[in-house]
């Protein structure tokens, strides 16, 4: 059997890139967010009534998050590509359509500001350098080379990271280092995280949190 190579390309690409299900319905997502999946808590319990998250506990802001990205992450919790027992329990009973609805709902919420930690100017300066220029001598391209201009995000694979809580960014970079997060395509983020020194993680997290985020709509 001779397989048309473009079919293969199409399938591979679809796998990496696009969700294979129907578009989410924000109205349904709002109801599901309030109900929870049956075995878990309503989203607002941790992510707040406006989806603002909770910096003290490293719960991320999910308001205004790219819907494709949010959906991929919830699938990753279901599939243990992101090791997080609490999130897995909270979403394990949702089907893909329901997850798409939830993602669509949170994408419509206005972005809430990050809790800006008090960071010394030199730490913010180091963070800004890493975010916008990188540290090529240690093979660290700038965050913006994938996360887009001012790190506002590109698509479902490259989310906006500006305006996210510093505690969450730091936690996730450390999870990548520890192999607890494997949801990134082609290990693009894992490789960068593993090269970051602790002080670089603190700095880039503090800087990104200090930057305004725009909603993805």
């Amino acid at each position, binding site marked *: 059997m001779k397989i048309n190579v473009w079919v293969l390309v199409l399938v591979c690409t679809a796998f*990496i*890139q696009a969700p294979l299900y129907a578009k989410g319905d924000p109205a349904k997502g709002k109801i599901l967010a309030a109900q929870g999946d049956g075995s878990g808590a309503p989203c607002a319990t941790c992510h707040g009534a406006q989806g603002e998250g909770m910096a003290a506990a490293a719960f991320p802001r999910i308001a205004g998050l790219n819907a494709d990205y949010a959906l991929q992450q919830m699938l990753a919790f279901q599939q243990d590509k992101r090791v997080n027992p609490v999130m897995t329990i909270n979403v394990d009973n949702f089907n893909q359509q329901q997850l798409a609805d939830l993602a669509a709902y949170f994408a419509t919420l206005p972005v809430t500001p990050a809790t800006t930690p008090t960071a010394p100017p030199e730490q913010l300066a180091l963070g800004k350098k890493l975010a916008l220029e990188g540290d*090529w001598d240690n093979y660290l391209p700038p965050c913006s080379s994938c996360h887009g201009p001012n790190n506002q995000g590109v698509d479902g694979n490259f989310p906006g990271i500006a305006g996210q809580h510093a505690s969450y960014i730091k936690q996730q970079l450390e999870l990548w280092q520890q192999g607890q997060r494997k949801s990134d395509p*082609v*290990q*693009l983020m894992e490789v960068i995280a593993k090269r970051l020194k602790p002080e670089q993680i603190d700095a880039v997290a503090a800087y990104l949190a200090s930057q305004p985020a725009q909603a993805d709509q």
Partner: protein
Amino acid sequence: MKSVHKVFISIAMVLAACVSTAILAMQSNDVGQVKLPSIKPGQYVHQAPTLADIQNDKDLHPELRKVILKGRDLFMNTQQLRGKNVFNDMNCKSCHMGEGRMAWSGPVWPAATTLPDYRGKNGHVNSLEERIAGCFSYSMNGTPPEYGSDTMLALVAYHQYMAKGAKLYDRNIGGRGFSSLGTAMPADVSYNQGAVVYALNCAVCHGPNGEGKRVHGEVVFPPLWGDGSYNWGAGMARVFTAASFIKNNMPLGQPGRLTDKEAWDVAYFINAQERPQDPRYTGDAKETREKYLNFHKATLYGTEINGKLLGQHDNTGEKPFLKPDVLKPRTFAEGVVPEM
């Protein structure tokens, strides 16, 4: 019709299963390590200055510092010359990654230490300005800033500062250009394998059709073929150049992730797609290939791939002309007018 559809779906499912297995198998365990070729004994290496060095160099006159920084800004965001000198989605840094400072990523300082020099591509001695003009004419599918202009001076100043402290005219340079895999394409290079490598490693950023990605009009991931990409006369259109670039720079942050074979295959696949016309086009791709065979022997231009003659078209992309005036022959033999 319905059964055809079903067949397609079942093939797709089988392939999807294969692919997800392949993705799992492909997870690299030594991720994080930078796997670059080693510098050969006797090769010259130079550490190019950083942005901080430019900012802090006390020997620089403030005006010169301004010009060097302007050159750097043009290098990093060449799209500011869009519609004037640049007619595609590329920036200098798209190919000369890491601010043009990185070994194995076309570091720019060797241009400043080895030029003027004879260049096979155009068959005469080139200045640094003329070398930069070549990038604008081919890689940027455009026309260069005028020789001696503010823009050209700024770019030259950045190149030259990158060479600060480097040895002049030493040509045995480690990590120069893009040729670590050699120039001989392997006989078993495969378009189909290249398409698979592309889908698994490249499409997530560069798009399923090589179209790249933009956000609010700003290029984030450059297009690899089509109107927004480098034209048929660009160095990157050579399969060996692209193969070495990919091997040592792609996917971003993971030099050495792909095997040599994968790099060759995907370079072949990418460079077997259509792109804007070579500015030296005579109206016949096969003829143009023959005329500039010293260059095109390494490209697929003017050859038939999958039943299509590559480069036989009048498409210059967004650029409203074919050949910039600056691409002229040069000779120091008085009275001899070479043909071009």
